[in-house]
């Protein structure tokens, strides 16, 4: 089996994990796909070192996270990324009303509820979604998140709390 064939098996094994990490952090499928592709190209350059390593998953997650941070800071100035500005999506108000109506419907299926929650998470402002995802999905502590993002511990706690409050209305008890 050639290196390229072995690498294809490697991609198949980790593509969902890498894409999921990127998608949760970035909130946009096209951007997550771009980041995931870059991650795997970097992995290919070091495939002789990480191919059979048990640390491959950790390496991929770290590189994915770092590339997502780079992506976010490249497309928005860092001061704006972690400010209190809302996302400037034009369809946000319409989405808010749709979500509210959907979340209150008694006949909503579990899958639809999950879809609504995924969309609500995706629509959070970057400065809330990124630390929230790092805390709840990547099991990072508040302090680790503050260090990673280069912001104060208090700001991380505040942003995560506000993110949870924003999601609360979409979570059925």
């Amino acid at each position, binding site marked *: 089996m050639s*290196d*390229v064939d072995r*690498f*294809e098996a490697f*991609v*198949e094994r980790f*593509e*969902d*994990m*890498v*894409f*999921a990490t990127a*998608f*949760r952090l970035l909130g946009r*499928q096209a951007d*997550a*796909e771009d980041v*995931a*592709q870059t991650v*795997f*190209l970097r992995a*290919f*350059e*070091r495939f002789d070192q990480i191919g059979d390593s048990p640390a491959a998953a950790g390496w991929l997650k770290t590189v994915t996270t770092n590339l997502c941070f780079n992506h976010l800071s490249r497309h928005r100035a860092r001061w704006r990324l972690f400010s209190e500005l809302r996302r400037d999506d034009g369809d946000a108000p319409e989405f808010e009303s749709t979500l509210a109506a959907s979340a209150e419907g008694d006949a909503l299926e579990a899958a639809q509820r*999950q879809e609504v*929650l*995924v969309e609500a*998470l995706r629509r959070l402002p970057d400065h809330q979604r990124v630390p929230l995802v790092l805390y*709840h*999905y990547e099991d990072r502590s508040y302090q680790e998140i503050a260090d990673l993002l280069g912001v104060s511990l208090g700001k991380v706690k505040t942003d995560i*709390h506000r993110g*949870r*409050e924003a*999601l*609360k209305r979409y*979570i059925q008890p």
Partner: protein
Amino acid sequence: MTPEELECIVHARLRALPSPRAPRSLRPAVMAAVRARAARPWYARPWHSWPSRWQAVSAVVLVLAVVAVVLLLPDVVAGSGFVATAGDRAMGAIRVAGALGQAAYLVTRAVVESVGDALTVLFLVMLAAVTTVAAAIRRVALGGAY
């Protein structure tokens, strides 16, 4: 609902969400790029993936090039002193700067970009600084003769 309760509920609900699946287009795109990359000759790949003997050779060549620049720069600069007019001097300086810039560009493109290693960049920046200082000292020691 207390903040602690909210944290627990949000955590449970988020972790219960299905994990996003990679789009079908991802793997073919990655593998197409990988096959294109694998088809390139070794010298067109990133430096850290070169064969180790060529890495060693290129490192030695780089060091020799830097040493040559350190040793020859004063003579090159002094050589431009033979020109008579201020305009010719300026043109000479521009040619020297252009040649050095081209050399720096080639070295950067061949090694620095492919290495992508901050330490290597730092090393080259420090070498450039040492080169500049050495050239300045030579000029001062020669009384600014050129």
